[in-house]
């Protein structure tokens, strides 16, 4: 919990998603142990496939990169974890400690 009482999420990593490489197979969604990948519902890439997007909470476990048949992901681990608060209208901000 943050000082304002809002839920916080600890994020220790992030990914770079090569959107146009994706073929919309959904394997990464199931692979992610933190459930922080979601497929777009309407947007498609230049090939016409839906693609994944990242939510806060990534732990840089590389599961997505290892399972992806199209090498869509690059995975980074932050030097310092990031605490983030999610506001009511979905805005993510950092908690300053």
């Amino acid at each position, binding site marked *: 919990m943050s000082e304002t009482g809002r839920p916080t999420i600890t994020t220790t990593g992030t990914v*770079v998603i090569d959107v146009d490489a994706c073929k919309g*197979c959904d394997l990464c969604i*199931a692979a992610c142990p933190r459930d922080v990948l979601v497929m*777009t519902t309407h947007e498609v890439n230049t090939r016409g496939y839906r693609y994944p997007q990242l939510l806060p909470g990534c732990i840089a476990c*590389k599961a997505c990169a*290892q399972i992806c048949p*199209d090498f869509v992901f690059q995975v980074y681990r932050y030097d310092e974890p990031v605490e983030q608060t999610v506001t009511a209208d*979905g805005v*993510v901000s950092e908690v300053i400690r």
Partner: protein
Amino acid sequence: MSDHHLPIVDTSGPPRRAAKLVDDFTPALINQGAHHLCPGCGEPVAMRLIMEAVEELQLAQRTVAVFGIGCYTAYSNNLDVEVVQALHGRSPSVATGVKRSLPGSVVLTVQGDGDMVNEGLQEVLHTAARGEKVTCFLLNNGVFGETGGHMTAATVLGQRTKNTLEGRSAEQHGYPIVIGDLIAQLAGVAYAARGAVNTHTNVARTKRMVKEALKIQDQGIGFSFVEILTMCPTGWFIETGEAPQYLDEHIEPTHRFGVIKSPRSRRAGDIQPVHH
């Protein structure tokens, strides 16, 4: 822009805050990430973990990969290891010729189940029986993928394929050849294991099997073999997202995951499958 009402993180480029790259788009030994294999295909996942294993064991400068013919042939001109392209089913004999001529090299084959269990059954069995110091990798998806998804000798009972649309039946189509188990029975085989790439956990376990197989080749103990169950949603007539579960429920009960034979458990004619 997102079509969710969710806090989407910007993933269009590397992070601005201090971070280390822990996994790149493609492994160092795969040249181009893009390919024309189907969405959800397990073969690129298997190729990735094999090439990562070669790199992590620092074998790239000693490796010669001998490719069979199948969808995975797309990688024969896309790797940063030396490759000899063979014919359908005929990689083990070519690998034998390479390894006997270059005993210090690490020779591996990449074959599908149609290639190895149909066309090339004789080749792999004799190569294994002779204990050739090569490593054969089998990408098993239970179909001839490249020609459109027909039954192979590895297709499991009940599996629907282009020519077993009602499901493979023992009466009409005979029984599957459980190739990993068959190979393990041969005395020349030092290591035989079966992995899968349907979950990232299985990917990690399979990579350990691949590394073990290559190390055993390097130690000159004998023939090593890793079968890797891969997803083929196209060949299986299912959605891509269902393929990992289909593999677990339909393929794996016949082609069982685990180390079938290793130097530690090896006794001639006495197979002790160890299921993880």
